[in-house]
């Protein structure tokens, strides 16, 4: 369903993405990993239409979406959550999700009815339930804890009823326990909604535990791809991470 072909992008003299080609099968859960500055977020920006690539194709829903605005890409069914939770600070959790659902139903322009529209409530409740945010429905987004903010960010993306969901470091800035709770929710979501999920992650234990496929980026290019086992044994990956992340070498040695 989603595949990128020979995607390249440079900023000034820096090549942030080099000739990346990856297929993401329908309903897959894929991790994008790589050292800092590997071009992971840029990769997401390219796919989601936030930045236009210099070369290459992004094929989604049977069409090349390069050159489409991020708005069009969202409407085709690709939503994203951000590394730093992108919220609406002055709206309550419920209002924010309801507004997002309203927007997805193409009713952002409705003037003659009152907010919330009747057709949105069920969907909103479902999303809050799914993420365990129901008890905080009336909390202002800015007053949420860090973890809940990340969840709400994902909730907003879910309101788009996406076929493909891009999660940029869903566990960023969390403690170890919280990370596992968070990723448990992501996995649950993926199982329930049967979406194609791409996520960027730094914690190798998490990646190896839940991802079906892993793509390793380094200096903007694909260094390796495969299943958790394949990646663990890949000498290039071990070399790339040695010195920057001993954890991976350690994890690989355990097998």
């Amino acid at each position: 369903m989603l595949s990128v072909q020979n995607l390249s992008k440079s900023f000034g003299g820096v090549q942030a993405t080099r000739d990346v080609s990856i297929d993401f099968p329908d309903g897959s859960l894929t991790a994008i990993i790589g050292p800092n500055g590997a071009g992971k977020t840029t990769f997401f920006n390219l796919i989601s239409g936030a930045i236009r690539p210099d070369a290459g194709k992004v094929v989604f829903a049977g069409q090349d979406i390069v050159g489409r605005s991020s708005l069009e890409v969202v409407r085709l069914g690709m939503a994203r959550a951000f590394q730093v939770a992108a919220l609406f600070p002055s709206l309550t959790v419920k209002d924010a999700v309801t507004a997002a659902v309203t927007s997805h139903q193409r009713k952002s322009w409705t003037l003659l009815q009152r907010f919330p529209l009747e057709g949105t409530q069920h969907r909103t409740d479902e999303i809050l339930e799914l993420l365990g945010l129901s008890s905080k429905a009336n909390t202002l987004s800015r007053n949420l804890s860090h973890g809940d903010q990340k969840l709400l960010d994902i909730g907003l993306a879910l309101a788009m009823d996406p076929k493909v969901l891009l999660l940029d470091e869903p566990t960023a800035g969390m403690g170890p326990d919280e990370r596992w709770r968070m990723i448990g929710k992501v996995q649950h979501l993926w199982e329930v909604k049967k979406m194609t999920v791409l996520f960027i992650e730094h914690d190798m234990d998490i990646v190896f535990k839940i991802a079906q496929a892993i793509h390793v980026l380094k200096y903007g290019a694909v260094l390796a791809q495969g299943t958790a086992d394949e990646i663990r044994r890949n000498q290039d990956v071990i070399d790339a991470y040695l010195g920057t992340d001993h954890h991976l070498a350690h994890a690989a040695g355990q097998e």
Partner: protein
Amino acid sequence: MKSGVLRDLAVGAVLVALLLVLPILFPKPALRDFLIYVMAYGLLAMSLNLLVGLTGLVSFGHAAFFASGAYMFGLLMQSGTVGIPVAMLATVGGTAVLALVIGAICVRLKEIYFSFITLAFQMFIHSIILTWVSLTGGDQGLRGGIPRPPFLGIDLNDAMTLYVFCVVVFILCIAIMRQVWRSPFGFTLRMIRDNPTRANFLGADVVRVKLGIFVLAGSMASVGGVLLALFVSGAYPEFGFWTTSGEAIFMIMLGGSQLFIGPVIGAVLLRLLDHFVTIYTDHHGLVLGAVILVIVLGLRQGVADYIVDWLERRRETRAAAASVASEKGAA
């Protein structure tokens, strides 16, 4: 949801009753005049707040549409070809087109650029009013009075009838803006105010939505201009001068940008302030400027917003204290 509408209707009814009873209780023309001014400028400030408070677009040129309302209406009435209702509708439509053209250029810009360029366009309109003397009367304003031919048995030459007419139009516009404020569209605007990038990634067409509210706010401002033109029976370049926009912004700050009715309260306060300052001194700008500086530097936010925040903080501290107390009790 339904209860929200009912409550708004109830508040609206009380407001109408109050506005109609006040001049009967205190039958001085001065009070009526004061209230008409407040309603005209209140519409200007309220409509500006759809941009400032609801969408996060700080326009410094909103008075352009206020002036366009007054002049278009005045010129249409002086032409003698149409009655008051048609002239009003045509004025609102004409201003909407004007706002569409100006907005199409402005709404794409980042916030501070937006402020400046709206100011620039306003001064452009102002300079057109000043230079096109044959049409607008230049700096003398639209002279010769604005005729008020009776329509549907309503004769606006009677002062009380004019007042009631203004109240009805004012409340009608307030109702429209209240509906915008509470509609799904209003929440799209809040999303854009809080985080336009995110709103875009949630399928909101940010530029078009901004343009939509810009046109709507401009049209509402033009109604304020119509009321003022009807009342003073003329139109003057000052209506479209930058100070008028500045006053509207100050009204919002006095009355609060997050309170729906705040800007009208601001309009009342500023008119009162104006009234007393003019009695005691000629140095109107000096006093007004000093008041603004004291408020902005002292509170660092609008007066009403400050009070609302203060009340909220107090409630939160109390709630926290209460929960601590109850926990102690439970232990």
